[in-house]
C-alpha cells in the first residue's frame, strides 16, 4: 500500500517543513478519513462530489418527469417523497425546491468542489514536484468544511417546509422573507449556513493552491514550464479567493434581513395585504453582489476543465499543445474579464442601458480568448497521432461542447437580444452546454486520465466508450431542442406548460427530452459502477508511465505514498509538452536538454 518515504537532505530545499510528514505508520483514520495527504483529500473531494452528482442528477430526472409528463401520475414518487408528491404528482413547491437544489448542488458541490477540489488537490503537488500542499492541515480543513457544508445542505432536504426553493441565485425578496414561500423558511437559512461553510472551504483551499503553486515548485519548474492544468487551477484559485468573499457578504446581509429585522435588500413590500416595515433596501443590490461571484463562478468551473482538456489533448495527440503561451495568456485574459462582466446577468433588471452597453462590450470580448483556446485545441489535434482513449474522447467532447455553448453565449451577451431570451429555455440550453456538460466532460477526461495514478488501476474502457457516446449524444439531444423552445419564448422555472396554447406544440419535445435525460442519467450510473468496480477489480497499472506523458506525476511510484517521490524530488529541465520532438515520441520534463536538440 503506502510506500515509505525516506526524506533526504535535498527535500529541505523545497521550502517544506519536513516534520509535517506522516508517511510513517498511518492508522485507518489518519489515512482515509482525517488524511492530510493531498492525494487522499483529492479523492475525498471526488467521491463526495460524485455522491452529490448522483443526488443532483436524480433531482433533475424527477422534475423532468413532471415537465415531460405533466398529466401523468407516478405512484412510486409518493412512496419516495411522501407529501411532496401527493397522489404520485410532484407538488409545485417541491418542484421549485428540486430545481433550486439541482442548481446549487451541481454548480457548487459538484462542479466547483468536485472538479477543482479534486484535481487541484490531486494534481498540483504531483505536477509541480512538491511533497504535499503548502499547508496540509488547511487542506484537510478545507475538505471538512466542504463536508460540513454538505451535511447542512443535505439536512435541509429533510426539514418539514422543504429546502430552499427560490432558485439557485436566491434572489430576494423571495429568499429574504420567510412568508414568501415554504422554501423560504428554515430551508433558506440552512442554505445560507451551508454556503458560508462552503465559502470558508473554498478560501482555505484556494489559499493553499495559490501558495503551493507559487512557492513549492521543484527545481527547474519555472512558471512557464508548468503544465496547463496547473495554470488553469492557479487562475481558478485566484478567482475563487477573490469572488467568493463577495457572496459571503451578500449571504451575511441576507441572513441579517431574514433574522435580525434589517432591510438591506427589502423595500416597500406587501405580503398578503400587509405592508412590511422594511424600507430603503435594494433587491438589485443583492443581484450585483451575487453575480460578482456568480459570473467568476462559471469560470471557476470551466477553467479547470480547460486545463485538463489541454493536457489530455496534447498527451493523446502525441503533439505539443499549440501555442502554450497563448493558452496561458488567454486563461489570464478570461480570469480578468470574469470580474468585469457580471451585470450581463442583469440586463432586464432595470440596469441603466449605458451601463449595459459597457457590459455587452466586455462580455463579447471574452469571445476572443475563448476562440484562441478553441483554435489552439483544434490545431493541437491537427495531424496528431491521436489515441482515442475515453479520456481523449471526453477532452474532444469538451471542445465540442465549449464551441456549441460558447456560440449561444454571443447571442445572450447582446443586451437587446437578451431581452427576448432572458429566463427562457435558451439560457438553460446555453449554460448547461457551456458550463454544465462541458465542465462534466473536463471532469470525466480528468478522471479517466488520472484514475491510474489515483488507484493504480485503469477504468474499464468498454464501459468508458458506452458512457461517452451515450452522454455526448444524449447531452446534445437534451439541450439542443431547448434552444428552439427558448426562442419560441418558453420560460424557465415553470412547473407546467400544458396550460399555454403557445407551448402545447412542445409537449412531445418535452417528453422526448425527459426520456433522453433518464437515459443519460443511467449512463452516469454506469460510470459510477465502472468507477467503484475499477477501484477493486480494474486492470492493474504495470508501468510507471502508462500514457507516455511528460509531466512529473508519472515519475512517482505507481501507488505513491504520502510524500509522492521515494528519494529526491526530480529536477525539471524543460516544459511539459515536448511530444514528437526530434523524432522522439515524448521527452519527459525530467530529461536534460540535449546538445543538438532543436527548438520547437
Amino acid at each position: 500500500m503506502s510506500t515509505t518515504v525516506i526524506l533526504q537532505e535535498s527535500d529541505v530545499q523545497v521550502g517544506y517543513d519536513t516534520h509535517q510528514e506522516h508517511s510513517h505508520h498511518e492508522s485507518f483514520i489518519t489515512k482515509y478519513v482525517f488524511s492530510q495527504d493531498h492525494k487522499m483529500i483529492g479523492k475525498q473531494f471526488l467521491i463526495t462530489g460524485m455522491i452529490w452528482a448522483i443526488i443532483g442528477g436524480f433531482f433533475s430526472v424527477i422534475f423532468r418527469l413532471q415537465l415531460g409528463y405533466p398529466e401523468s401520475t407516478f405512484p412510486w414518487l409518493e412512496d419516495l417523497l411522501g407529501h411532496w408528491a401527493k397522489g404520485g404528482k410532484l407538488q409545485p413547491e417541491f418542484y421549485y425546491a428540486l430545481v433550486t437544489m439541482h442548481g446549487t448542488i451541481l454548480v457548487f458541490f459538484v462542479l466547483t468542489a468536485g472538479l477543482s477540489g479534486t484535481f487541484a488537490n490531486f494534481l498540483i503537488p504531483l505536477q509541480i514536484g512538491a511533497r504535499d500542499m503548502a499547508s496540509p492541515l488547511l487542506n484537510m480543513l478545507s475538505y471538512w468544511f466542504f463536508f460540513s457544508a454538505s451535511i447542512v445542505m443535505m439536512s435541509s432536504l429533510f426539514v418539514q417546509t422543504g429546502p430552499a426553493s427560490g432558485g439557485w441565485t436566491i434572489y430576494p425578496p423571495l429568499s429574504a422573507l420567510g412568508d414568501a414561500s415554504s422554501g423560504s423558511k428554515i430551508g433558506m437559512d440552512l442554505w445560507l449556513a451551508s454556503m458560508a461553510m462552503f465559502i470558508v472551504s473554498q478560501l482555505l483551499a484556494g489559499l493553499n493552491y495559490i501558495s503551493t503553486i507559487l512557492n513549492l515548485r521543484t527545481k527547474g519548474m519555472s512558471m512557464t514550464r508548468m503544465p496547463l492544468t496547473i495554470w488553469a487551477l492557479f487562475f481558478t484559485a485566484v478567482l475563487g479567493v477573490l469572488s467568493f468573499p463577495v457572496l459571503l457578504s451578500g449571504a451575511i446581509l441576507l441572513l441579517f434581513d431574514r433574522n435580525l429585522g434589517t432591510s438591506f435588500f427589502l423595500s416597500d413590500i406587501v405580503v398578503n395585504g400587509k405592508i412590511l416595515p422594511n424600507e430603503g433596501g435594494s433587491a438589485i443590490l443583492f443581484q450585483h453582489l451575487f453575480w460578482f461571484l456568480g459570473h467568476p463562478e462559471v469560470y471557476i468551473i470551466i477553467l479547470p476543465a480547460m486545463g485538463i482538456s489541454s493536457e489530455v489533448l496534447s498527451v493523446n495527440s502525441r503533439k505539443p499543445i499549440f501555442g502554450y503561451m497563448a493558452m496561458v495568456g488567454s486563461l489570464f485574459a478570461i480570469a480578468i474579464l470574469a470580474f468585469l462582466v457580471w451585470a450581463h446577468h442583469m440586463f432586464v433588471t432595470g440596469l441603466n442601458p449605458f451601463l449595459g452597453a459597457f457590459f455587452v462590450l466586455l462580455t463579447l470580448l471574452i469571445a476572443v480568448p475563448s476562440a484562441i483556446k478553441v483554435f489552439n485545441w483544434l490545431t493541437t489535434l491537427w495531424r496528431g497521432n491521436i489515441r482515442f482513449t475515453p479520456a481523449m474522447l471526453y477532452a474532444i467532447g469538451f471542445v465540442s461542447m465549449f464551441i456549441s455553448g460558447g456560440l449561444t453565449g454571443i447571442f445572450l451577451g447582446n443586451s437587446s437580444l437578451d431581452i427576448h431570451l432572458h429566463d427562457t429555455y435558451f439560457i438553460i440550453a446555453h449554460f448547461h452546454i457551456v458550463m454544465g456538460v462541458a465542465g462534466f466532460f473536463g471532469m470525466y477526461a480528468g478522471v479517466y486520465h488520472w484514475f491510474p495514478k489515483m488507484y493504480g488501476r485503469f477504468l474499464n474502457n468498454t464501459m468508458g466508450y458506452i458512457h461517452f457516446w451515450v452522454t455526448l449524444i444524449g447531452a446534445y439531444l437534451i439541450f439542443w431542442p431547448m434552444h428552439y423552445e427558448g426562442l419560441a419564448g418558453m420560460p424557465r422555472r415553470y412547473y407546467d406548460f400544458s396550460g399555454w396554447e403557445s407551448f402545447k406544440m412542445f409537449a412531445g419535445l418535452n417528453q422526448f427530452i425527459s426520456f433522453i435525460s433518464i437515459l443519460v442519467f443511467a449512463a452516469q450510473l454506469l460510470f459510477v459502477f465502472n468507477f467503484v468496480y475499477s477501484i477493486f477489480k480494474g486492470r492493474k497499472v504495470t508501468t510507471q508511465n502508462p500514457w507516455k506523458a511528460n509531466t512529473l506525476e508519472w515519475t512517482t511510484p505507481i501507488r505513491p505514498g504520502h510524500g509522492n517521490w521515494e528519494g529526491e524530488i526530480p529536477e525539471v529541465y524543460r516544459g511539459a509538452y515536448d511530444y514528437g520532438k526530434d523524432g522522439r515520441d515524448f521527452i519527459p520534463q525530467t530529461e536534460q536538454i540535449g546538445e543538438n536538440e532543436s527548438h520547437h
Partner: protein
Amino acid sequence: MSTIAVQQGTKWWSGGRSPFNANYGKVMMWYFLMSDAFTFGAFLISYGTIRFSVNHWVDPNHVFNSFPFAGHTNLPLAFVSLMTFILIASSVTMVLAVHEGHKMNRAGVEKYMLMTIIGGIAFLSCQAWEWTHMLTGQHPVLVDGVVEYWNTTVAHNPFGPEVAYTGTDPLFIGKEIATPGPIAFGSYFFEITGFHGFHVFSGVIINIVMYLKTKMKHFELRGHYEMIEKAGLYWHFVDLVWVFVFLCFYLI
C-alpha cells in the same frame, strides 16, 4: 526550507524566483487579506449604494457626540477619534514588535506584543461602550404627530430630518424635532462595525497566541519571528479597514 532562505537572505529557491522573496505562509496571508478586502469592499460598496440612493442621511457630528463619563456632552467625533488613535497606536507597537523580532530580541517582542494586545482590547471596549450607548440612548422622535423615544438599532433610526413641532407637548412646543431616519443607517453601522469588531477580536486572539508562543521561546528556537510578521500583516489590515469604516460612517 523557509528558515534557511530567511537566514541566508537568498532570493533564489528551487523552483525559480520566489515571488517577493516571501515564503508560502506570507503569500497565503497576503491572498487571505485580498480576499477579506473583497468582503469588506462588498459591504462598504453596498453601504454607499444605499446611502446615496436616499434623500436624507444622519449627521455624524450629531450622532457621535458623546463621551464616556461626561454625560450628555457635545463633543462631536471626540470619542471615535480616541478609538482610532488607540487602534493606530496598536499598529505602531505591532511594527515595533516585528522590528524587535528581526533583532531576535525576545523581551522586546513580548513587551510590544503585550502593548498591541492591550490596544486591541481597549479598542473593543470602546466599541462596546459606543454600541451600548447607541442601543440604550433615548432620543425624541416625531412619529405620526406624537413624540416617541427611540434608541438606535438595526431597524430604528431616530436621527431623521427635523420638522417644526405642531403638537401639544409643552416640552417640545416651538422646537424643531427629528423624524424617523433611514433605517439603513443603523443596519449598516452595526453590521459593518460589528464585522470589523469581529476581525479585531480575532486579531487579539491571534496576538495572544503569538505572545504566548514568544514567551514559550517557540520562535527563538525556530530561529526567526516570522509568525509575528504574519500576525502583524493581519493586524495592520484590520487597522486599514477601520480607516475606511471611520471615513464612511463618521467623516462623510
